[in-house]
């Protein structure tokens, strides 16, 4: 390890690291730790979901029927597809094929945009129908309404809103990676940045894979 530094260090190596593998390892470990904090952030929401589902089982079932299953399903497919393109991008980055990386990232970004547009449609419909959290809840047919319904929408908006925020941040990161690819940044030994961005995108996807069945299906 020590001998590597004695040679001419490649410019990518920051001064405080002993060697490039160490630096890359640090970046990977850092990313995984960051992802674990993200998981725990959403875990809090899932705990809320679980507690209230337990308190108001019928409401929750009725609430999920109010969501648009087709739109949710399309979004799931879109996101899973984008995860696939990101995985390809990472793979191409490893091989240093910057053109393909760029192309794959464009596809991913398109998917992210589609996801957000569809989400926007869903939200505007909810706003229209008054299916909103807390005090803003004002659905037309109050007849036969179950207690706790506003709560369902609190959880729905908190969870999908936080997730959408992550999609936006993730898209930002991927745009940055696309710029790097455009500038022929990645090479066989230099792809950790893309790898980490890919991991982040997979996390965003993974969270949705939990949210989708919990909110739309059951």
């Amino acid at each position, binding site marked *: 390890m020590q001998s590597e530094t004695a040679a001419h260090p490649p410019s990518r190596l920051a001064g405080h690291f002993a060697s490039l593998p160490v630096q890359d390892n640090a970046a990977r470990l850092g990313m995984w730790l960051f992802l674990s904090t993200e998981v725990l952030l959403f875990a809090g929401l899932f705990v809320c979901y679980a507690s209230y589902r337990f308190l108001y089982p019928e409401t929750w079932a009725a609430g999920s029927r109010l969501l648009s299953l087709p739109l949710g399903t399309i979004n799931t497919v879109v996101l899973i597809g984008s995860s696939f393109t990101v995985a390809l991008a990472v793979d191409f980055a490893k091989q240093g094929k910057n053109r393909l990386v760029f192309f794959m990232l464009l596809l991913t970004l398109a998917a992210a945009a589609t996801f957000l547009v569809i989400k926007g449609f869903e939200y505007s419909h909810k706003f229209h129908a008054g299916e909103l959290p*807390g*005090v803003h*809840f004002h659905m037309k047919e*109050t*007849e*036969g*309404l*179950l*207690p706790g319904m*506003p709560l369902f929408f609190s959880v729905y908006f908190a969870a999908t809103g936080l997730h959408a925020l992550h999609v936006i941040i993730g898209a930002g990161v991927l745009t940055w990676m696309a710029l790097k690819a455009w500038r022929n940044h990645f090479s066989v030994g230099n792809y950790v940045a893309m790898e980490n961005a890919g991991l982040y995108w997979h996390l965003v996807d993974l969270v949705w894979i939990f949210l989708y069945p919990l909110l739309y299906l059951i």
Partner: protein
Amino acid sequence: MDFFKRLLFLPEQASTFASKVDELHVFVLVATILASIGVGVTALYFFFRFRRRERHQTTEYIVPTVMTEFLFVSVPFVLFLLWFALGFRDYTWVQTPPRDAMDVYVLGKQWMWKFSYPEGPNGVNVLHVPANRPVRLLMTSRDVIHSFFIPAFRIKRDVIPGRYTDTWFEATKPGTYDIYCTEYCGLSHSKMLAKVVVLKAEEYENWVKEQRMGDKQNRQDALADTTLVSPRANLAQQGQRLVGEAGCLKCHTVDGEQHIGPTFVGLYGREERLEGGETITVDEGYITQSMMVPGEHIVSGFPNVMPTYQGKLHSMETAAIVEYIKSLRTRDVVNTASKGPVYEPVRIQ
């Protein structure tokens, strides 16, 4: 024992739980004091015994033996487990009210305590209880979380909106003791005080009789700080207006006829048969619950169609409706005591 209690500033002991818990209290605190002094003195002795004698003094390389390590772990472990076991024994005891306990409903709201008895009388900021008889408190809050604390009885329980909690005590000494609110609840949290008056059994009977004569409520409330009591007539009138506005009268009547829902007349204090066969006594808590979580208890013979008013009625509006329904009771229902505990407290797991 008495010496320690004075040393530790323990308040008067006025319940069966207090005398149970105080011995453990003294044991735990004396052990704590001894342990910290023990550790402190040993350390001071070492500081002196092993003081530095020359600048670059070297020392021996000492590591603990397995025996030392075992002691380090096991001594505190055994001590703490003993504390736990004794504490948990007492705790389960105070968590399980005896079957024959007398019930009192406690309602906390910013910033007063309201007590109502199944037998009739109710009061604000003064709780009357008989000595040497277990009393169970069924508590709920109208607004934010409060906490009901009687230092002399060593009992405390949070009072939570939208749910019932309970606790119980058996007072041993007649006298007057402080009740504090110990969960921060806003501006006058520190003034949310009340008194518990423990009466000898026969005095208590007399007090109850006295309360039943004449206009009971006003009598009782007069004992308390009147500035805290909202004008009753106004509340009931507000309630009368509200039941119309909120649409209650679409399903309920105020003339004794059954409609889609049960009539409001004579509702308060009535024994209601529920869907499952059990019965329930209608009190403030139950009426509130009917408005907030109507599906919780279904009156037998009626459909489960009542909507929730959760979030649609403010707490004061709820209070007004409850007061209105209470004002519709027939003359003598309040004199019949309910049988046994009526509420299984709702607890979160």
